[in-house]
């Protein structure tokens, strides 16, 4: 009895105690402590995301499907089910269907496989993505200036890579003087009859070849017979090849028409210069 009165008196005179927490806040606090989602890193396709605040409270051991809006549409490509994975001990798996903005994600659907055992406290999900950045790394390419690509006239001796506008010039007068002159016959069909017979007549006089045995093989114009050191007749080309002597001290010379006449008796070929068909040339 005393105890009842004392309790009653105490109850009547007692200071008002703070109300007991409601079951909702108790549940929320317990779930948040249990899952600690606000600090857990969440991995999206290998890139970490961070959940800042509580998102939902589910019974442990149940998987949840969360649709987030972000612009990572590519996450759905291929698998269509990119997971947000929290640490394994929290037993929460989220499948990402869609993303819109980077900084805020809304829970659009939350499917819990066993609804009767699940209590949903809050549907808003604030997700702050960690700043993602892609380092596009290009190696610093060295810049080179090559001498061989310049378009201005290159300098003397600047190497093999340039087209040297001052190509070395060599004097080769002696070299080309040693190269024999080659003179081809005129077309015999263009000769007048008198001219044709004139060459055979010269062969008869100078080489004693009778007219009926002689054959005109070729006629060569303007041959400097006085200055020739070596002379050869090339039958296969109907041409003559000759070299000339040094002309430095010679003032004048003559160029004769030369005929190649074959003696049919012995098939010997004679080169006959026409004594009257010549021109005088000044060399001074």
């Amino acid at each position, binding site marked *: 009895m005393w105890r009842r009165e004392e309790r009653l008196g105490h109850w009547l005179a007692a200071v008002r105690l703070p109300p007991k927490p409601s079951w909702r806040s108790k549940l929320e606090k317990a779930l948040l402590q249990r899952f600690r989602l606000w600090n857990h890193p969440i991995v999206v396709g290998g890139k970490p995301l961070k959940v800042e605040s509580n998102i939902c409270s589910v019974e442990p051991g149940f998987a949840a499907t969360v649709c987030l809006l972000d612009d990572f549409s590519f996450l759905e490509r291929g698998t269509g089910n990119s997971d947000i994975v929290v640490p394994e001990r929290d037993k929460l798996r989220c499948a990402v269907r869609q993303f819109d903005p980077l900084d805020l994600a809304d829970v659009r659907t939350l499917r819990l496989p066993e609804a009767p055992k699940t209590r949903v406290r809050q549907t808003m999900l604030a997700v702050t993505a960690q700043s993602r950045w892609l380092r596009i790394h290009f190696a610093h390419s060295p810049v080179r200036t090559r001498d061989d690509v310049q378009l201005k006239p290159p300098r003397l001796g600047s190497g093999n890579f340039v*087209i040297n*506008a001052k190509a070395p010039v*060599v004097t080769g007068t002696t*070299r080309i003087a040693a190269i024999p*002159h080659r003179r081809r016959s*005129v077309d015999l069909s263009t000769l007048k009859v008198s001219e044709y017979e004139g060459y055979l007549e010269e062969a008869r006089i100078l080489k004693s070849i009778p007219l009926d045995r002689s054959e005109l093989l070729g006629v060569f114009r303007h041959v400097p017979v006085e200055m020739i050191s070596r002379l050869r007749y090339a039958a296969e080309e109907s041409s003559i090849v000759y070299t000339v002597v040094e002309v430095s001290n010679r003032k004048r010379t003559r160029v004769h028409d030369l005929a190649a006449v074959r003696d049919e008796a012995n098939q010997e070929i004679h080169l006959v210069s026409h004594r009257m068909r*010549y021109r005088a040339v000044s060399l001074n």
Partner: protein
Amino acid sequence: MTIQDRPVVNQLLKRVGYFSHLQMDEKHMGAILVTNQIGVPLEFKYTEPVVATRLHKILYGPILERYLHETVIRDRLGREIHTAPDYFIAPYDEKEFLGSVADREMVAIQKCSLPPGELSGSFSRIREREAVVELEDESIFLRLAFSTPDESIQRKIITWLQEIARTMDVLEPLDRITSALASICGEGKRG
């Protein structure tokens, strides 16, 4: 042809210039030969082979050949010649690259055949810079391409050509230049 013996005293001393360009493989060479009236060399100068690399071909593009012909070889040789000829003769293939060498005009020549009576007179202009000329003694025709459009200079060149054709074969020295350059180029290859 009648017998002719023109007096020497009336003949002016003539020097004949020749220019030729040779491309062998990737090597470009050029040479200038100056001869007297009978084709005997008075001066011969040639460039050492110039090689255009693949990079040159890309960078210079279509102007490469002209640059090689004119700037690198012809102009360079023109500055080195000491015996000034009256005019320069070049192979007809060179007609795209004609120009004055050492202040002397050039003419590209080529033998051609025409039917009898086709040519009225000793020569005929067929274009502004081209003509056909008949050599007096040899009954052959030459096709000419001039470096200048000036008709008066062209006539002088034709007269000069006909004159020297009376004492020499005007085309033959070009063969000698080609032989010399091929020989020099071959030596470089063996070396």
